[in-house]
């Protein structure tokens, strides 16, 4: 049993992922393993097609569960980044200012397709898990 498979089963045992999510992750690993030989670049995991964001949280007022499940095509992110590169300087400054006010010191002008590709390459290899008392966030890439 390889390390990735063991990690998924451990996450399932600890209740961090549901059985369906674990099955999907295992399928993704199997798919990437099969694609590895066929891929000219030999990159593990193949090309990511979707960015998934899963949020399990509790409502602040009622304490009842709130779930968010977002699947964004990577192509859409690429198109968005290309569009942001065409943003007029004044609009870019306003966006940067608004982001800074929200505590996100990101310069939108620095977002370039190359940077996105690099980010996606790294996300393809790892899953970002944020576990808090009342919220759980998972960000990962899906090949299919």
């Amino acid at each position, binding site marked *: 049993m390889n390390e990735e498979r063991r990690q998924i089963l451990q996450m399932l045992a600890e209740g961090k992922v549901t059985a369906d999510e674990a099955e999907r992750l295992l399928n993704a690993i199997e798919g990437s393993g099969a694609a590895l030989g066929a891929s000219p670049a030999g990159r593990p995991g193949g090309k990511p097609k979707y960015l998934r964001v899963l949020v399990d949280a509790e409502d602040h007022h009622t304490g009842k569960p*709130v779930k968010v499940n977002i699947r964004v095509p990577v192509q*859409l992110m*690429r198109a968005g980044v290309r*569009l942001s590169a065409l943003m007029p300087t004044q609009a870019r400054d306003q966006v940067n200012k608004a982001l800074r006010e929200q505590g996100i010191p990101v310069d939108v002008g620095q977002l370039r397709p190359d940077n996105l590709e690099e980010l996606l390459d790294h996300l393809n290899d790892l899953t970002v898990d944020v576990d808090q008392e009342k919220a759980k966030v998972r960000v990962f890439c899906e090949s299919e």
Partner: protein
Amino acid sequence: MIPALAIVRVRHPRGGFRVWAPVLLLWPLAAVAALILSPILTAYWVIRRVNPFAAAGALVRLVFSLSGLNVEVESPSASVHVRLI
């Protein structure tokens, strides 16, 4: 691929609805509207010092990459599911 179908599902304690909208039918209309508006858009982009061809290309790419988008939000008071196929 350009989105052909939009599925919108809204549920709340008082009811809800589900819509299957064939957005494929909207694209020819959108293309005609874009053609009519193109002089205005081009003038705007030129004034804003944006390459009109690059902007138009980016917008078309954005529309063509919408397919596969899935947004699902569930809360005790309401749930919304939007999917583009």
